[in-house]
């Protein structure tokens, strides 16, 4: 009978509708990216031609340059942001109460609270004032900044589930601080670090608004290249690129989610 109060008629249908709404547009784009026809309206049979076009067509050099920028920036931004986030998480979770703790947490979450367009404007103004020419470096710096909270949250969540007794035991057995961190804490923390890095990577890879403001002329990442093309109409090769980017995001989120689950029980306080 306990199921009785949990059941509301119609809620299941709405949940199913919700999933359909979330996935249908993505599915349609993925299907049409395999359309053999040049027209984006009519279905002309299955084909890989637009994927071949992305890699070998007239626009291939532009896409390749944009992809290189996107992937290298995402890799560097995620790595630097994760290193900063791990250091911050160790201090926040392991230092108990200290003055400025909640202010620090607010600071770390700040990139999530300021609307993206405002961050974009502020960052552009900042780089313009200090005279840094918009380009690769300005995009990288902006991405490192907004990736920090995304890397921080999974790391901190993981760390608060690891019993401090593990490190204390290592210290009791004459491990140095560095050794206790490297040999004990780091392996236990690894799934959280992987999870945070992956999330930071896709957040950087996907960013459009901030990148669009600080990229400068002639510099493109995949999202800005896609945006530029879409303004002139949605071409099938853009759907192929979008589908590939979609696949990368879904793969990375899944990996991040799996990493977040592994060994959670092993490290938890008994």
């Amino acid at each position: 009978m306990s199921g009785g109060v949990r059941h509301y008629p119609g809620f299941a249908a709405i949940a199913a509708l919700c999933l359909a709404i979330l996935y249908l547009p993505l599915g349609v784009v993925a299907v049409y990216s395999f359309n053999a026809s040049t027209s984006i309206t009519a279905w002309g049979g299955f084909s890989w031609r637009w994927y071949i076009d992305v890699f070998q067509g007239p626009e291939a050099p532009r896409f390749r340059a944009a992809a290189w920028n996107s992937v290298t920036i995402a890799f560097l931004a995620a790595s630097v942001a994760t290193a900063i986030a791990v250091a911050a998480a160790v201090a926040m979770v392991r230092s108990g109460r200290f003055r400025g703790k909640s202010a620090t947490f607010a600071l770390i979450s700040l990139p999530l609270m300021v609307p993206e367009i405002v961050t974009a404007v502020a960052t552009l103004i900042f780089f313009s004032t200090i005279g840094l020419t918009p380009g690769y470096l300005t995009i990288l710096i902006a991405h490192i900044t907004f990736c920090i909270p995304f890397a921080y949250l999974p790391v901190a969540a993981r760390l608060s589930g690891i019993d401090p007794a593990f490190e204390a035991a290592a210290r009791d057995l004459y491990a140095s601080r560095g050794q206790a961190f490297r040999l004990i804490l780091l392996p236990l923390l690894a799934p959280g670090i992987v999870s945070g890095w992956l999330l930071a990577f896709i957040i950087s890879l996907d960013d459009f608004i901030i990148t669009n403001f600080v990229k400068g002329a002639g510099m493109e990442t995949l999202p800005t290249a896609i945006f530029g093309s879409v303004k002139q109409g949605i071409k099938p090769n853009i759907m192929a690129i979008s589908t590939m980017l979609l696949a990368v995001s879904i793969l990375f989120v899944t990996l991040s989610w799996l990493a977040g689950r592994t060994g959670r029980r092993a490290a938890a306080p008994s």
Partner: protein
Amino acid sequence: MAAAGPAPGAARGPAVPGDRPLTLPLLLPAWAVIGVFLVVPVGLMVVYSFLTQGFRGGVIWEFSLAAYDRFFLDRGLFGDEPPRLEWTYIAVFWRSLWQAGLATLTCLIVGFPTAWFIATRPARSRTAWAFLITVPYWVNLLIRTVSLRFLIRDQGPVNQALIALGLTDAPIQMLNTDFAVQLGLFYSYLPFMVLPIYAAVERYDFALSEAAADLGASRWVALREVVIPSVRPGIVAGCLLVFIPSLGAFLAPDLLGGAKTYMIGSLIEDQFKGSLGNWPFGAAVSVILLSMVLVALLFYARNQAREGRA
């Protein structure tokens, strides 16, 4: 474990007595990066909103209230008439506010039943559902918006389906309307509504619903009188997480709406595009948007504090 010697104390201090605390050096990189590259820029943005417009973008470092004057006051075509309230930009904000508000409401109407449904599944399928709702959030927002644009074009799959079903003879124009913007905002931020409510319902004690039922409340009365007050923090968090990004949204209005659905995000973007822009004005509009977000966050913080006391 709690009773086993000094280990629990380790959480509140150095693992070994005499260790120098490393809190400061560990936090320094995060403080430095976010401080220098976000807090300082936002401060600078406020300063820029009080400067004079440069000739080809940029600013001249002279104090001026021109940006706020332009936002709020209409001094006629030649600037010599007595100032009246300027409605152009207030109207843009008003449109953004109701678009964001309506999107929040539709997200709530769809998101609450979804979150409830997920939270009442058995543990295994619950995780799977929550994962399925999360994935679209991590998918490129630009691509999601483009896919909607593709879907609702005049010749798009939705119109083709409607015509094939005989529901309409000619394509219904959906792109470049308020409806398209609504759909875009709803679609972009729906996961933000579902997840916090799901987390709240998961902690909800269903015995309360049973008690309500035993006392003769119908399930809808129980929902209104017992469930919703209990999961209110989740609902408030979800509404805020949808409302704030919707208010400053750029992609949905730009790619789905037309000139008629001009919102704050586009107004800001235009001020920094090419040499025709007006940086102090763009900065001023951003400052006004940020202040509105801060008000919403303060409202949230106060609300959370009240829930905490209750």
